[in-house]
């Protein structure tokens, strides 16, 4: 008992101390990020240039935003496999509405957000009240969303959208790309939601012990509905950036992105069984993945080999982090 108190004190006494970082769940993801960055810096001299860093962050933004919703879902002990497909459908419908019906662009974008959130709530309702396993529900939704996107567009990209939409994908404020700003804002909001609201505590409580949360009076089903709704919403937000970048609605976009989003969450130190993890960890995890992609590209490594290396690094990271 007294031993615990001492270690806690020693962190505060010595002026500025970084001791808390070592005890934080962020320690391992941060160390991983630093180690990989240094390695990449040695391998490629361009790596640490400002333009390359901005480039990496911009590339990270879409998976990074998907991973925010995924973090909420995984913290409750669930999973959402539908994020990539929902993103593609939301983008395709938004683009389709702009091109085919002549709706003002911003209304079409709002409609896209509605589609994403609606599908998320659909997942959530089935998981919470239908008592169906999340992995199956969202796998089915993944198929449904992908199929609708292809049906709606006939399988072809929908182009010809208003040119100002591109601001979301490739615009800049100063030197900072708009998608990076969007990502940072979304992470900040997620942090507030998770750390400073009753809802956030309930998310962690459900992942920690759903039965105890329910018996103490937490409305567990509504909380679950909400986390899947959030995941659908972040998928649709990612869709706006994607649509702006590609200047079209792409029904085939985002295949496999759900796996990258899950990898970012897990690399960020969130327990896959739920209850433990930090949204900041997910950001670090997403950037770590982005750096790997970027660095391996800069080194000119065969793309097929890149997948093998990334997979191995994820396994290694989870092996190292499995204790806490």
């Amino acid at each position, binding site marked *: *008992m007294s031993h*615990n*108190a001492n270690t806690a004190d020693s962190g505060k006494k010595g002026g500025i101390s970084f001791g808390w970082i070592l005890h934080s769940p962020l320690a391992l993801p941060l160390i991983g990020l630093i180690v990989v960055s240094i390695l990449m810096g040695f391998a490629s001299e361009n790596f640490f240039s400002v333009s390359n860093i901005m480039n990496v962050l911009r590339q990270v933004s879409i998976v990074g935003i998907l991973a925010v919703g995924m973090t909420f879902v995984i913290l409750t002990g669930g999973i959402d496999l539908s994020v990539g497909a929902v993103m593609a459908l939301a983008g395709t419908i938004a683009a389709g509405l702009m091109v085919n019906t002549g709706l003002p662009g911003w209304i079409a974008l709002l409609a896209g957000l509605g589609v994403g959130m609606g599908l998320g709530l659909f997942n959530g309702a089935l998981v919470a009240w239908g008592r169906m396993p999340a992995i199956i529900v969202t796998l089915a939704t993944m198929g449904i969303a992908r199929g609708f996107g292809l049906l709606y567009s006939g399988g072809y990209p929908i182009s010809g959208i208003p040119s100002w939409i591109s601001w979301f994908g490739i615009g800049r404020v100063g030197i900072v790309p708009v998608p990076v700003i969007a990502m940072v804002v979304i992470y900040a909001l997620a942090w*507030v939601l998770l750390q*400073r*609201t*009753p809802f956030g*505590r*309930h998310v*962690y*409580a459900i992942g*920690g*012990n759903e*039965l*105890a*949360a*329910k*018996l*103490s*009076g*937490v*409305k*567990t*089903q509504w909380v679950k509905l909400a986390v899947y709704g959030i995941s659908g919403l972040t998928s649709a937000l990612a869709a706006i950036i994607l649509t702006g970048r590609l200047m079209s609605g792409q029904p085939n976009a985002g295949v496999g992105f759900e796996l990258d989003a899950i990898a970012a969450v897990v690399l960020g130190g969130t327990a896959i069984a739920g*209850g*433990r993890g930090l949204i900041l960890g997910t950001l670090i995890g997403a950037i770590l993945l982005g750096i790997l992609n970027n660095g391996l590209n800069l080194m000119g490594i065969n793309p097929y080999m890149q997948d093998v290396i990334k997979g191995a690094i994820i396994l290694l990271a989870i092996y190292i982090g499995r204790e806490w």
Partner: protein
Amino acid sequence: MLQLTGIKKKFGNIQVLHGVDLNVRAGEVHALLGENGAGKSTLMKILTGILQPTEGTIRIEGEERKFANYDEAIEAGIGIVFQEFSLIPHLTAVENMFLAREMKNKLGLLDRRTMRARSKEILARLEVDLPLDVPITKLSVAEQQFVEIAKALSLNARILVLDEPTATLTPSEVEHLFKVMRELRKQGVAIIFISHHLEEIFEICDRITVLRDGEFVGDCNVSDVDNDRLVEMMVGRRIENSFPEKPGPRPGAKVMLECEEVQLRKNGPVSQFELREGEILGFAGLVGSGRTETALAMLGAFPATRCKVLVDGEETRFREPAEALAHGIGLLPESRKEQGLITSFSILQNISLNNYGKYRKYHWFIDLKKEMAASEAAMAQVRVKAQGATARVDTLSGGNQQKVVIARWLNHQMKVLIFDEPTRGIDVGAKAEIYQLMREFTAKGYAIIMISSELPEVIGMSDRVCVFRQGGIVATVEGDSINSEEIMTHATTGRVQNVA
């Protein structure tokens, strides 16, 4: 045939068996009796090699044996049918009986024909006929039990332990089981039979061994004792815990909660009771008698077929505990780790879990300062001993964990608190504190339902007691009738009213 002598067992510092003897002869049905926690299960785990005794010897046919594990006990001819079956639900009876020792033919494939024939042979020995080719889940509970027994016999068991086999059976199934037991007795198998239902003991058993609080009380022939004598042996005279004084009934106390009917299962018994302001209503009964389920049904956490509850005279049906909380009814569950606490949370977070309505700023956000202040005040009120409010809750002792769960309910406008096994796994000192807290609550006008398997606790704390048996309330006792003989008699022989 089987002789256990001077068996002692310690878990850490707690002595659970203080030198127990058990002598079982071939071809007899031997009852092992005692209240919950008397040490029956521990003794059976020692017999079957799952636990090792701290002291004492096991002899089979005069020869001293030591079992390092369950497999060695099976090897020596001991079979056990646990209360919770160890069958694989989706496999057939035959597949279950030969699990992990499947017979193979010359090609190394399963020799299904031989296994099937062998199963049939064993079941015939029990004079039981049941479908062999359907998944176990399609069989009745009794049939599943016969499969378990057959499995033990297929391993050449000569000593068979049946741990509360009748708890989940219907009367006609019990009859069938007894027929099988008589058949086995004729074949010279020694059966150790654990049951809380005394009339069953008189019907089927030859001899009895009684345990109480880990002590050996005695053994005797069934024909030498009667019902009252057995209850007395089981309950005995014991050192009473220090319970706070009962304030006695309040004149004109209003009814806070009236349960007009609860039916847990279709065709099961229907119970009713009422709960008055400032009283502790005990729910007594054996494990599995429906006490917890009844409480959970009222909160909307157990799917009862019927549940009609009046709160302050108004009919309500809660769909989930959150709705019960809004009406001022809260639960302190039986298992703190599984149902009560978020073990990865701090004390603070566990207390505030259902309290966030009260400390917010800007409507949406948690007011961290108020949260800390309120939680620390609640901790002080129930006297949680810990490093601080931010300590992780899994570092606390059982008693302090229970206090954290209690603290969660302090800041609500509660009317009814349901304590399920409030002192399980808690040391004596902390127990007294929890009892004290419960009385402080009732003094404030709360009403408490206390579910407990510990008879002294029920007697020492309750103003009135509902006694449960087989899924329903069989009797409600108050005043001087709250004594161990009365409660045990109702709990073991009381009759429930079955309503279609």
